[in-house]
Every structure is written in structure tokens, then in C-alpha cells.
């Protein structure tokens, strides 16, 4: 089984190499692709020294487009499984097996690593918790399915999903939208509990200033997504 680790990186010079090494240590046989999303620091130079694949985007396209670049790469190079892991050490390499195992066992098409599944102990800000709660309710309402951590970017995908997402992935704040899109298109999405680390380096792609825009944009996207019938896949492929 050909496995690809997709690591989107935007100004992560301090942590990206460490993440690469940890992924390699955890899964020695998997290939690693770093998508450098127009970083202005030394991310490019540092990653170039590692013997892994690196794609440099000419300017900052946004996390969604960067990850999508990874999906396109995985599709073109015929990978059977791809997982996304952040370059800022928030996602722990020793949790990777948890999210790829169900895919290897063909139990699902998509695995989301959830911080909240079965647990309540999170020390996030009030607004973040409120946002998460709103997302959970929206998902419950629209899908009739509980997704506890739809903003998590720690995910694994099988081949079918990779091919779909290579063509359908939002540019900014793509995660919750993708969950709806995938479920609406008949993909089997499962959450597993993973431990995550609080962020040491870099900042979330969701700053407090942008969180209002984030909520509105994602809710609109989710709403529209749920209106669409699942014809996207056939149309575009």
C-alpha cells in the first residue's frame, strides 16, 4: 500500500523538519510531501535539505489550496492512502497509526482525528468552544450524524476520496465544508479519538479577528453544500 503524508506548511521553519522526521520514524515506508504555501521564512531551505518531496507554491494560496495540491500529487502518483498532518507539531506523529489503520482495514473512506470524541476536557477559549458547538449542531442537523471535530485537519483518506478531493476542495477554511461534501457524496466518514498537542509554534489559521468571518463563511458553505445534490463528482471528473 502506497502511503503519502501531506504536510502543508506556511512559515513553519522551526517545526517542519521535526515533524517530517517524526513521521518518517513512525512510518518509515511512507512518502512525505511538504507543500510550502508561499512561506516567507526559511521553510523552503530547511525542507530542501531533507530527502523528501517538496512542492513550493509561488504565493500563499491558503491552506485549502495547499492541501489540495497534495491530493493532486497523490492522485497523479497513484497513492492508495494519504493523510494530512500539520507542520506545527499540533498533530502528534505517534497518533498517525490510529487514523490510517481503519483505512487500511477498509472500514471507511475518510478518518478524522478528533480531539473531542468521548472527551470533554479541552482548554480552548470560549469563542472557539462556541464555534465548535455550533459546528457540531449544524452537522447534526444537516447530516443527522455527529461529527465532534469537523475543524480538525488531522485526517486520512483512501484512494477514492483522494481522487474526489483533488477536484473538490475549498480554498480557505476547508475542513468542515469537506466533511459535508464527502458525506453528501456517499463517502464513509469516521472519527477516531487522537491526542493533540497545544500549539507551540505558529498560529492557527483561524485568528480571533477572522473567526467571525470563519464562522459565517463555513456556515454558508455548509448550507449551500447541503443543498447541492451529489452530482459534483460525476460532473467534474
Amino acid at each position, binding site marked *: 500500500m502506497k502511503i503519502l503524508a501531506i504536510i502543508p506548511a506556511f512559515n513553519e521553519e522551526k517545526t517542519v523538519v521535526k515533524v517530517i522526521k517524526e513521521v518518517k520514524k513512525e512510518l518509515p515506508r511512507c512518502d512525505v510531501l511538504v507543500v510550502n504555501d508561499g512561506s516567507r521564512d526559511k521553510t523552503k531551505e530547511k525542507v530542501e535539505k531533507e530527502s523528501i518531496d517538496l512542492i513550493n*507554491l509561488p504565493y500563499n494560496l491558503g491552506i485549502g489550496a495547499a492541501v489540495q495540491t497534495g491530493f493532486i500529487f497523490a492522485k497523479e502518483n497513484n497513492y492508495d492512502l494519504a493523510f494530512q498532518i500539520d507542520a506545527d507539531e499540533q498533530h502528534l506523529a505517534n497518533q498517525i497509526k490510529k487514523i490510517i489503520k481503519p483505512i487500511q482495514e477498509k472500514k471507511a473512506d475518510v478518518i478524522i482525528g478528533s480531539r473531542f470524541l468521548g472527551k470533554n476536557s479541552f482548554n480552548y477559549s470560549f469563542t472557539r468552544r462556541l464555534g465548535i458547538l455550533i459546528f457540531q449542531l449544524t452537522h447534526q442537523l444537516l447530516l443527522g450524524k455527529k461529527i465532534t471535530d469537523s475543524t480538525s485537519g488531522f485526517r486520512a483518506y483512501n484512494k477514492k476520496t483522494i481522487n474526489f478531493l483533488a477536484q473538490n476542495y475549498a480554498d480557505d477554511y476547508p475542513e468542515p465544508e469537506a466533511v459535508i461534501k464527502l458525506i453528501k457524496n456517499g463517502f464513509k466518514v469516521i472519527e477516531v479519538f487522537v491526542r493533540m498537542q497545544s500549539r507551540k509554534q505558529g498560529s492557527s489559521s483561524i485568528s480571533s479577528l477572522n473567526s467571525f468571518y470563519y464562522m459565517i463563511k463555513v456556515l454558508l458553505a455548509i448550507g449551500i453544500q447541503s443543498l447541492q445534490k451529489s452530482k459534483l463528482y460525476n460532473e467534474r471528473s
Partner: protein
Amino acid sequence: MKEVEIFRIQIIAIAVSLALIFFIINLIKKRKLKEKYGLLWILASFSILFLSIRRDLLEKTAYFIGIDYPPAALFLAALFFGFLLFLYFSIVISDLSEKTKKLAQEIGFLKFELEKKKSRKRKRKK
């Protein structure tokens, strides 16, 4: 006295709309504006010109729709046109940003392939 005033504003309006038409056509000639988008503006300026010449038409249409003050009908029409145009631009911008994203991703891939080939050559030379 009133007649003269109306006449004066009419001349100004005609002159302005004519200037607008020439300006837009000139932009298209200089390739600063694509015909596709210029067409909309030319259409708008010709309607302004037409309404400046045939003021009575504006009045008649305004009364016909039920607007007592004819210039208000003009404002309404202008607002509506402006709104449509902005919406159209948003659509064009969305389309363009999708296209530039694809281009950027493509550039990323091309550079990646290029680097791979270069490093293979370097290895062969060694």
C-alpha cells in the same frame, strides 16, 4: 426661464454621455478594456445619451411605473445597473481566482518536476 435651464442641463447631459462613449471606445481601442466588458458600459452610456435627448421618454416611463419625480426613476435605473454590474464583477473575480489558483498549483508541480530532472542529471554526472 425654466425652458432655458432645462435646455442647458440637457446639453450638459448629452455632452457628458458622448464623452463617456468616446472614453470607453478609446479604452477598448487601446486594449485597456476588453470588448466583452466594454459592451456593458457602452450600452449604459448609450442609454444615458438616449434619455438625455428624449427627456420626455424618461418622464413618461417614470409616470407609467408610478414614480412622480422622474429623476428618481433615473437613480433607480442607475442603481439597478450598478448592482448588476458589481454582481457580474464578483462572478468574474471568483472565476479568475479559481483559475489563478490552478495556475499556481500547476507552477508548483512544474517546478517540482524540473528540480527532479535537474537533480537526476547531477547524479548522473557524478
